[in-house]
């Protein structure tokens, strides 16, 4: 899975119309709520990446999330 594929999947799963970008801050994304967190956890599970929830909750940006997913963002 490419980085763009991951972003597209995440965008779709959090039900966001606009594309996600590497430098987006989570606090600026209206759809980034508790449901989005759960969805992100599900996406990580789908791509076979283990993540500590504390690490996921510490993410402040899409870049942070991509790095947790193993991409060189």
């Amino acid at each position, binding site marked *: 899975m490419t980085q763009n594929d991951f972003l597209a999947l995440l965008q779709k799963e959090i039900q966001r119309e606009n594309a996600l970008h590497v430098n987006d801050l989570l606090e600026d994304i209206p759809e980034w*709520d*508790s449901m989005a967190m759960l969805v992100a956890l*599900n996406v*990580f599970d789908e791509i076979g990446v283990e993540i500590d*929830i504390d690490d996921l909750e510490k993410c402040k940006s899409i870049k942070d999330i991509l790095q947790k997913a193993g991409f060189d963002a």
Partner: protein
Amino acid sequence: MIWKSAKVLKTFYKRLALTLSGFGITLSSLHHDQIEMVRHWRNSDHIKRYARQQEPISSEQQEAWFNTLQTKEDEYFVISAHETPIGLIWFNVKEALIETGFYLYDETEQNSLTPYKIVTLFHEYLFDTKHFEAIHCHILHDNTRALRFNLSLGYTLFAEHEQTNEYILTHENYTEANAKLLKLLKLLKRERS
């Protein structure tokens, strides 16, 4: 006389402290010494914004409300994360319908997985311990965050009202949604207590 004694005992045991815990979250029966803290939470702008009653609640009203709980089936729990109180969750029994609600005073927890941890504990109590067949909640029309959250839990639209829409979570939908939720929450390295 025996029936009256049984009813008194039932009420007494119902009011004994109950604690539900897991995923680092604790739900503890509301105690009298917490009602001022809860009243402060309830009167804060970001909480009452999404409440059906917008007027501030006085100490006297809060005291009277707490006293009525002693003879009702309703149950209220203070939510704590890492031993810090962060919100309130409850169910009311209204004409045989179970109506639930909760709020987080600590806004930093709203966009975390904490809400899911809370409702996982609470719904297991309602469906698996209390054996309710269905539960309801009311959501203000402009509360999109709550709507997304509750739909993800398996709630479906039950009725439309002037201020709110009413949603229902049946036992069947709870079972299906909870299985998916538990599968994801079990990915947490922290073990469920």
